[in-house]
């Protein structure tokens, strides 16, 4: 005779159709203990079904039962606020990510400090970017602590963070790089004035 069935096997029998698991069903006819356990499982399943249907028939919502207390409307509003603030935060983050993807960089305090430092060290020095090919001076010059208008120049100075970086001013870092093979004028501050030399002279 087969050994006694485990609980899971009894449940499988319960869930199966009458023709399934012939050997297990054969065992039930031979083993009174397993037959009793199976009967108990059937009774339990019936009790579960009956209890669940009874509960479903007598189910009442808390609103209907007038048990809705003061915290429920507050909770609903809190959830609504959470939904909308979450959506707003997500939208803001997406917009910020899009801006970063498009190349925008925020102006940070360190960038401003670097800018101020460069302007201070280079004050009084006119920096000129000479377009050697055309023989025309196209440069910009600024004195004092006036800040450049373009964000690209901020980026250029932030990258170098060097006071002397302010000596080379183009429209942008990329413009400066593009003109790298052109003749640029380098100026170094000295006590008695600025000493300037072209990039060709610098070697």
């Amino acid at each position: 005779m087969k050994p006694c069935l485990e609980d899971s096997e009894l449940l499988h029998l319960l869930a199966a159709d009458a023709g399934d698991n012939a050997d297990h069903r054969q065992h039930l006819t031979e083993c009174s203990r397993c037959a009793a356990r199976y009967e108990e499982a059937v009774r339990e399943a019936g009790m579960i079904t009956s209890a669940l249907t009874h509960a479903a028939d007598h189910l009442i919502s808390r609103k209907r039962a007038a048990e809705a207390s003061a915290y429920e409307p507050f909770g609903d509003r809190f959830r609504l606020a959470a939904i909308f603030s979450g959506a707003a935060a997500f939208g803001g983050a997406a917009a910020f990510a899009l801006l970063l993807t498009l190349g925008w960089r925020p102006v940070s305090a360190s960038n401003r400090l670097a800018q101020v430092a460069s302007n201070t060290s280079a004050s009084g020095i006119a920096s000129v970017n000479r377009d050697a090919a055309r023989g025309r001076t196209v440069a910009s010059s600024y004195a004092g602590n006036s800040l450049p208008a373009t964000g690209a120049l901020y980026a250029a100075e932030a990258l170098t963070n060097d006071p002397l970086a302010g000596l080379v001013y183009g429209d942008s870092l990329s413009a400066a790089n593009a003109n790298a093979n052109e003749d640029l004028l380098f100026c170094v501050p000295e006590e008695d004035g600025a000493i300037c030399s072209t990039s060709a002279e610098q070697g």
Partner: protein
Amino acid sequence: MRKPASLPENQASADALFRGHQQRVVRLCRMMLGNPDDADEVAQEVFLKMLGQRERGPEPADWKAWLTRVAINACHDRHRSGWWKWWKRDGRELLDTDLTSRDTVHEAISHEQTEALWRAFRKLTPRQQEVFILRQVEGWSTRETAIELKLSEQAVKLQLFRGLRRLREALRSHQ
């Protein structure tokens, strides 16, 4: 065009169908949705569809099975359309059983056990709930359930086994 004389007869038949199946359909919807307000709405939709089916024809051979099928599909639709409402409710409204009226069956099972069973049932997967309802509550065969839910018969047996196992654990943990 419908004959005016047939209207009262049809009406009577519709009333009989409603009275005969209303409690069963509402119960099925409550078990599937968990929320009595939603379940009552869906049950109303089901009976509206029944009226429409009677208007359009042909009448199904078995109204009981037809109503069950329509109720299950309507509950699926409700699940899909109202996901955010389900999230918003957060289960606070879902359970409040009035078990003050006891019958002989429920003398064997305590209020706490019934609540534990209901909570365990709500935690079953939707598939397990559907299979349990069709097989255990509605008394459908494995084959009928498999066809309705578009599952294999083996899958139906497995889902029922898993559902029963979890419910039995819930029942025994509160003994």
